[in-house]
């Protein structure tokens, strides 16, 4: 395992320009104090436990994510494999460990790309209007933590996602996605920095 990590190091460095550099003016959330609905940019680390149907052992993943409100988001997995997924309104670009583009998929080629892009953009950016448009939302509060349960309105969404649970304080800290096919993902988020959206 250590050997693999050592061998992957150059690729990690290769991906660095995409992943590691914080955007200018991106400040820790406690300093920036950005309200979720005014979030323009978010960078965070994540760990994901993915329960795959029929498998005893879940798959553990970790990496970074960068959310650009209105433009899409990057999902940059570092463990156990180095891979980047850049979602934009036009589609998905898969990037390899060396930063090389492995493939691109437009939303009309693969409808699920649109589903993923809209779901993550809505959940991570904290845009209430977007969430309401895509989901039936029920909200509960537990102290400082707000728990939102999201049930997809759209049939295409319902085909792949049964329910999404988002915990926010006030920014998202934990997301649980229950797939219609029986899979389940638990994503824990540690936000590094945020930036409010540019004022008009």
């Amino acid at each position, binding site marked *: 395992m250590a050997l693999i990590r050592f061998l992957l190091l150059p690729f990690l460095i290769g991906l660095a320009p995409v992943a590691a550099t914080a955007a200018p003016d991106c400040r820790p959330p406690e300093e920036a104090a950005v309200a979720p609905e005014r979030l323009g940019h978010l960078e965070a680390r994540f760990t994901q436990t*993915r329960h*795959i149907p*029929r498998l005893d052992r879940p798959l553990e*993943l970790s990496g970074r994510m960068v959310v650009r409100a209105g433009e899409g988001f990057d999902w940059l997995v570092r463990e156990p494999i180095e891979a980047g997924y850049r979602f934009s309104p036009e589609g*998905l670009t898969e990037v390899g460990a060396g930063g090389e583009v492995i493939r691109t998929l*437009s939303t009309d080629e693969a409808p*699920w790309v649109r589903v993923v892009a809209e779901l*993550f953009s809505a959940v991570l950016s904290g845009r209430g209007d977007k969430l309401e448009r895509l989901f039936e939302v029920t909200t509960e509060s537990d102290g400082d933590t707000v728990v939102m349960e999201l049930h997809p309105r759209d049939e295409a969404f319902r085909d792949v996602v049964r329910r999404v649970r988002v915990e926010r304080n006030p920014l998202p800290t934990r997301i649980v996605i229950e797939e219609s096919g029986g899979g389940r993902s638990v994503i824990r988020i540690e936000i590094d920095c945020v930036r409010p959206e540019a004022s008009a």
Partner: protein
Amino acid sequence: MTPNAPVRSGAWLLGVGLAVAWVAWRIAGPVDPVTTDILALLPQDRMDPVVREAVGTAREGFGERLPVLVIHDEPRPAARGAEQAESIVREAPGAGFDDVGRDPEAFRGVFLPHRFQFLTVSDRRRLADDPAATFAGDVLRSAASPGGMLGGGNPSADPAGYLQHHLTSFPAPYPGFARDGALYRGTDGDRTVYLLPVRLEGSAFSNPVQERTGILLDRLRSGVTDACPDCEVLATGAVRFAAASRRQAQTEVFWLSSASVALIVILVVAAFRSARPLLFAVPAIGTGVVAGSAAVLAVFEQVHVLTFVFGTTLIGISIDYAFHYFAGLWSAEGETGSATARRIRPAVTLGLVTTSLAFGLLVFTGMDVLAQVMVYSITGLLAVYLTVLFVFPAVLRRAPPAGVARVARIGGLMAALGTRTSARLIIYGLAAGAAVFGLWQAEFVDDIRSFRPAAPEIEAEDRRVRETLGVETGSGFFLVRGATLDGALAREERLRENAAPPLLALSRFVPSQTTRQSNRGRFDALFGQWDGVTAALADAGLDPAFVEPYRNAWAKRGSIPEADVFLAGDSILADLNRMVIRATDGVATVARPLGSISPAAGTKVAERVDGVRYIDAVAMTSRMFEQVRERAQVLLAAAGLVIGLILLSRYGWRGGLRGIRAPLMAVGFSLGGLALTGQAINIFALVGLILVLGISIDYVFFIREGRYHLGSASPAVTLSAITTLGAFGLLSLSSIPALSGFGITVVAGIAGAFLAATTVLSREEYRES
């Protein structure tokens, strides 16, 4: 023994009645007998059958489509408008939605049992080195993808996403537009656009389809406006252009025919001071039109609308025979109709024979529409000929004395010109000048796009739809031949490596057997290193059980079938048979560039791969028109030669040469007229020249055969020329370029033919007569 009057009239009535009934039956029949398709004018027998079918298939695909856009600044109103439009289309008879951009997921079921044959070029290349590590990495990447956690792909059946990659590599019919149910959704700047890919049942060139489409578009515009008042609705498609052409042609035929008939009526009444000739001339012309229509509908299953449009010219020609009869009867006081008919018979018969000869040559152009014009014209002329010579004498036996003097005065114009040396010199000078100017300025244009009537509004809408969709496809495509379908697909794959822009090609869906075997080889290597795969996955923390179903499926893999298997039966892929042409000597596929490519670039790319040919339907069609025109030029010369020999044999050297001079002068005037009005010479102008040749020869025969009765022959030729000029003068005003060029050719030619006819007799012969 000549039948008596009641028998002749009865036979004529019966014949006309039968012809009318036949025409009515054909028009009311299940098959629309009239087409407006300009490509139907092509000489079908001279095309390679495979190319012909490919062009037909490509056109059929294009002709069936009616892309409709619903546009609004805001997404929600646009969605409301689109929803309303969708329900209107679903209820419309003969219309539905195109499934060319079917969701790639829908194809999964067909490909899944054969999954170990399909790899994208990129995946095949990546699997070439260390397939176990590559596969394990791809499985992990697939599982790590946010798509993986949302069911993107099918993890147990396709853990590395290779089949998914193949399915999503299918060409998108409307790049930038996402499928939304049966519709597509996209943007045009800040505006939301819904595309309704409407597919029509039947040919865009058939009248019922055009009428149904017109009704559908009206309903769409009003229905969408009700649901979304500010929504914009745009539509395009071959059917709209074809319908506009048909409407324009029908309107012009109606008005030009009506105006032509009105002109003739005025002339007849003015010349003969009697309405009686009208009572006979109009039915005579009608007989020609009905007989021509009946004949052409009997010989051809579908007749081009241009045949009927050119057929209106019959009115101008066939009236000549009637005029000849009236002028003969009116000018010979006391003469019976039978005697007049006998007297004018040689001239009219020679005129019919030579005009028919000129028209008859049209059949050798190999062009259906010209053969149709030939059948229409010759039959029509024959019907009028028989009516004038056999029915007129039975029903119009004597002329009233009042019109004689006026008829004689009309004929005086020819004698005045023919007996003056100065007038003759001016005519010769004009003819020579026109011919030289015409030949000097002659320009040949055979591009079929220049024959199409202008439809600026539809063209502007078409441009907007194309710009919004980002569709730039031209009329060209690649035709790829092979001994088998797999052979053609292998060549198509080589073509795709060279071609830019990308191609909509069958091999993108179903690669050749060779490529699928090569893909299978990659999987052979992969499963040969299966332990390496499971170790790498376990090392990364992914339970190797994740890929077990995949290995189980590999164990049950079947053989690699021929490509035909994928397209057979009621498979979802059977639609792709549209891209395949099966011939007796092999198979061909049609690959269409998804973007613009010049014919030269297309040809260059095609030359790099054996069995591939780039076909630009418009360029090819234009080339065929050019060939037909060149052939018609030769035929025109041949007709002139034959007619010249007839003239020489009948009138000797001096008289014959005078006769030959007349059609030459007429053609010279035609060329000069075309040059003066800036019209190019094309196949339709050539047809006009053949017509000019026929009419000018008529005049020669009328004058020469009637030289001892110039009192009737000259008025007949004068009236004939004036009416023909009127009829064709109107035609030259047509907005259909093919018709106006034809009209100008004939107007100038007939003016020349009339002037030349005054020189057919020598001054001495004029004086003698």
